[in-house]
């Protein structure tokens, strides 16, 4: 499907999705509560069939957090980037997509570990890379560690 057809398909599912295009991908920004529904339909629909999640990232944008899903379809050879916007910085939560793509199990644990976003219905959400009793979420922009991290002006 071309980018235009994908935009039409997604607008039917999530009417208030925001679209952007750069040289490589079509970027779709939605609010966090729609993500499971949208992701499920993008995978299961035979025309889109996004079955390969190749990158799952979390980004801290100071006023809000976002989770970025890079998807690709092996059969149709098109790609898309979904961004889920989470406005609550104190208790960020989002639905887990582990039931759709199993690679999300490890990736979501890493995002929970480093950014503090909770993934609901994740089979095993706990810290992955840091010690179990580590305080704080290092990849957040407001993580302060005077001993180790040098603040540039």
């Amino acid at each position, binding site marked *: 499907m071309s980018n235009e057809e994908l935009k039409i398909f997604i607008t039917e599912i999530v009417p208030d999705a925001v679209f952007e295009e750069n040289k490589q991908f079509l970027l779709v920004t939605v609010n966090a509560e729609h993500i499971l529904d949208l992701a499920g339909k993008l995978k299961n629909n035979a025309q889109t069939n996004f079955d390969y999640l*190749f990158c799952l*990232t979390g980004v801290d944008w100071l006023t809000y957090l976002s989770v970025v899903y890079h998807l690709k379809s092996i059969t149709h050879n098109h790609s898309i980037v979904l961004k889920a916007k989470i406005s609550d910085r104190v208790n960020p939560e989002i639905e887990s997509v582990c039931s759709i793509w*199993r*690679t999300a199990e490890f990736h979501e644990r890493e995002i929970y570990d480093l950014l503090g976003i909770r993934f609901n219905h994740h089979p095993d959400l706990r810290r992955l890379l840091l010690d179990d009793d580590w305080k704080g979420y290092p990849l957040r922009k407001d993580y302060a560690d005077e001993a180790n991290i040098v603040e540039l002006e």
Partner: protein
Amino acid sequence: MEETATSIESKEYFVNMGPQHPSTHGVLRLMLTLDGEIIKKVEPHIGYIHRSIEKMCEKDSYQQIVHLTDRMDYLSCHMNNEAVCLTVEDALGLEVPEIVKVIRTIISELTRLSSHQLWWGVMGMDLGAITTFLYGFRDREMIIDIFEETCGARLTMNYNVPGGLMFDIHPNFQKRTKDFITHFKKKLPEYDELLTGNVIFVERTKGIGYLSKEDAISFGVTGPSGRASGFSCDVRKHNPYSAYAKVDFKEILLTEGDTFARYKARILEMWESMHIIEQLIDNIPEGEYFTKTKAVIKLPVGEFYQKVETARGELGVYIVSDGKKNPYRVKFRSPGFSNLSVLDHISRGCKIADLVAIMSTLDLVIPDIDR
């Protein structure tokens, strides 16, 4: 009086394959739930080499983050550097000269050969054949000599900079590479036969650790491990970069999906790598080895993604930039992270010795997983 099997009770117990272990290829801790010798569950614990590279990149300039990527998957360090350089060059709209693309491709394929040689040596050693370790390193040392002469270092080469290469190639580079390829073509069939013709090796690897194609796509297993299950994921074919668009090579796809298929996929990949080098080594174009960039690189506002094919699979570099001289967020989608997540799924029901064979064919490098 007979003792029936039902009168013997067994319980599950836990064994820790701790962070310091000769077969885990680094600091990986596995908690095994066992019933006798049969594995019921494998739980990997990682983070023992988490060096916070992504956070460090937010305080470094774009030329400096190239040096940190060497230390992630140190066996394919040239390809890691290339990934970051390609992302930056693509974001700036910079076109590098032909000679840079050809040299980057040749050195990438030599790095792939040296990584697969080390993998082959260590795989034999894990299964008990120490001979393969010594032979594997002998040929790897020859490739490293070529790197040392041209790039300046043996392991963490840092030959790529955004905009091109760091120095021009050494005058001996072409001859030494051609001599190595001629030598290695005679040796690789011997090495293949050493393991493939060994009945113990074949019994220990055929039928073990089956990974289906749907699972490979769902778990995101790329590289030779994924291609041995039929998942066509070679970035060099689907999204060609550098000089891969103009060389002719096959993508190795097998369907069996077991440990032996993953082993065979890497051996066949070594043949293809040599084929690629042969096509390029005689026709290195003339030109400057770099394009001038500003001393302080600032990427435009936006996000950029680039994939390369390392020896382990697909490495993705995702840079989010806000226009300043340091990146806002850098994420490395490492192949080992997804390859490790499938370990539990494919090793249930195997014995511990089979787990060692499975891990060595998944070809994990733990700093790549932990970053």
